[in-house]
């Protein structure tokens, strides 16, 4: 993907319109990017969720202009308490998505810009936000990209990854700073695990109980809807270790039609650490390419299932 700004994207930028979205938390500020007039419109509005609307290397800005130059209407906006939006955000929790803000955005795009069909995307918490909208707006959501989401209700590793050989080796051989950070994390996680043991959920064993109730609710809404979904994961991310619980339980129970709408793509290595901007670019490149392809190509069962080792994509983008 060309990360330099193209003339078509520059043209889209000049046509962008600041918007104000009313929400329960106050006014949310965003930017609407209309589709390019010179290409056939897709009739789809892409909403790109991120904390503030150019969070982390301005990937949502690039994505919005790229998609708009290919016929999508696009919206990026600041969550309440972020960027230019009103309200206060006092804490962030991976299992508590910004659903109300996301819903307000969808409803506002319908009301103010007559948008009827949507695709939603986000990374980590923002992916969870995208997923959480389906429960309320399932009929209008064509597709969702949910990259490296947290699926547990507590931070840290799942039970079978609490202590591993690699971790022990890294701890023993790591510098003192790393040892300190690791020990602090370990103490915090002991409390989280204790809470997990004490939690009771009918019909769920300890393995399944690790998946958060919020995620399960949003996942079931996805299953009931007609929405297509891409889960993008990094094989060595703790988020993927947790997602494997979803694969073993929730995904395994789906019928062929339901399963065909859900794609799980697992890349080598890690995609979650935000200190690697190159990987983040690859994730967003894959996200918008999938959205573009998803809208243009009809859905069939063979589009689904797992895609592993996406090396041609993982190696295809650079600064």
């Amino acid at each position, binding site marked *: 993907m060309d*990360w*330099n*700004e193209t003339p078509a*994207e*520059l043209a889209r*930028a*000049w046509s*962008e*319109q*600041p*918007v*104000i979205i009313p929400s329960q938390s*106050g*006014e949310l*500020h965003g*930017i609407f990017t209309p589709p390019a007039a010179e290409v056939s419109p897709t009739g789809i509005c892409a909403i790109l969720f991120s*904390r*503030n*609307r*150019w*969070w*982390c*290397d*301005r990937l949502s*800005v690039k994505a919005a202009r790229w998609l708009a130059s290919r016929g999508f209407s696009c919206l990026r906006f600041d969550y309440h*308490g*972020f*960027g*230019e939006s*009103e*309200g*206060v*955000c*006092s*804490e*962030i929790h991976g299992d508590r998505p910004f659903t109300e803000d996301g819903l307000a955005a969808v409803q506002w795009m319908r009301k103010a810009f007559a948008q009827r069909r949507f695709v939603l995307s986000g990374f980590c918490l923002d992916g969870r936000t995208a997923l959480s909208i389906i429960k309320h707006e399932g009929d209008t959501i064509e597709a969702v990209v949910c990259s490296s989401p947290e699926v547990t209700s507590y931070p840290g590793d799942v039970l079978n990854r609490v202590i591993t050989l690699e971790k022990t080796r*890294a*701890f023993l051989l*790591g*510098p003192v*700073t*790393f040892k300190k*950070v690791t020990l602090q994390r370990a103490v915090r996680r002991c409390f989280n695990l204790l809470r997990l043991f004490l939690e009771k959920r009918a019909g769920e064993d300890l393995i399944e109980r690790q998946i958060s109730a919020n995620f399960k609710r949003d996942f079931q809404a996805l299953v009931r809807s007609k929405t297509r979904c891409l889960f993008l994961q990094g094989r060595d991310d703790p988020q993927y270790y947790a997602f494997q619980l979803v694969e073993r339980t929730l995904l395994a129970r789906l019928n062929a039609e339901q399963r065909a709408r859900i794609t799980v793509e697992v890349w080598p290595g890690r995609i979650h*650490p*935000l*200190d*690697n*901007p*190159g990987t*983040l670019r690859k994730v967003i490149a894959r996200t918008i390419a999938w959205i573009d392809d998803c809208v243009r190509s009809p859905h069939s069962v063979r589009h689904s299932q797992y895609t592993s080792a996406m090396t041609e994509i993982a190696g295809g983008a650079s*600064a």
Partner: protein
Amino acid sequence: MSQAVLISNRDAADLCQEQRGYFPSASAALYGVYCVPQKYLGRDRVVVFCHASGIEHMVTQRMQVLASRKAAGTGFPAFRYDSRGHGDSTGDPNDLTFEDLVDDACAAADHAKAVSRASEVIWVAVRFGCLVAAAAIGRRNDGAALALWEPVHQAREYFRTAIRTKLFCEVAQGRRSGATVEDCLSELEARGVLPVVGSYLYGALWHSSRDADLGSLLATWKRNTLIAQVQRRPGLSVNNQNLLSTIEGRGGEVAVTLIGQEPSWGMLPVVRPQWVSQELLTATTEWLHGME
């Protein structure tokens, strides 16, 4: 300004209206927001916010938004903008130079003066933006006052700090590349780009700004100045103390505020919301009013 809209912002504690849209600088479209005061106390002056760079822009953006609204809410017209390659503006950061940033600051000041009909500019600059604002002041003769929020005194140090943060993150994840800051700077020189936390450092900005020094850029500055140090230390840093002494020595009036609540400048605010310091907002607003 294209697509301007009027809005109200209730959480600014004070009501203000905003005009948001794009304005030109060279061939770029820069995103800018003009905060209209309900009543004018600014006496022919407009406050222009000059933002930080890279991840620090992300960290400090909310503070700029709140401060510009607070300024307007209490009577000062205010303007904030994104330079090319930053925020919602156009432009590629990989060929962005220090001169480009200064050009954008000047274009923003011109635009702010045009929409507010002010004749002088009060600059409020953040981190690397302090160097940009200082260079812009040197090009113009309309600078009325300057607030420096945790100023970067030497551009070179900004790059070194970003690299140190990257190396620290690697260690925190159990990776130790063995590379030093000097090694990384050599890589930046050779490749023209260096990944750091959540963003990139680019050779064009490094080459064009590495010798920039705040004291030199403000060599003749002697107007109202606020130094807002945002550090855990109890007293002024040596750099800030030297700057204060130099400006006062020229007859300038310098106010100082020490903010102890320091954000992680070079880290993405992943598990925490964006940085907000009520103390700094209050200090800046009081400084503005103190000039009336």
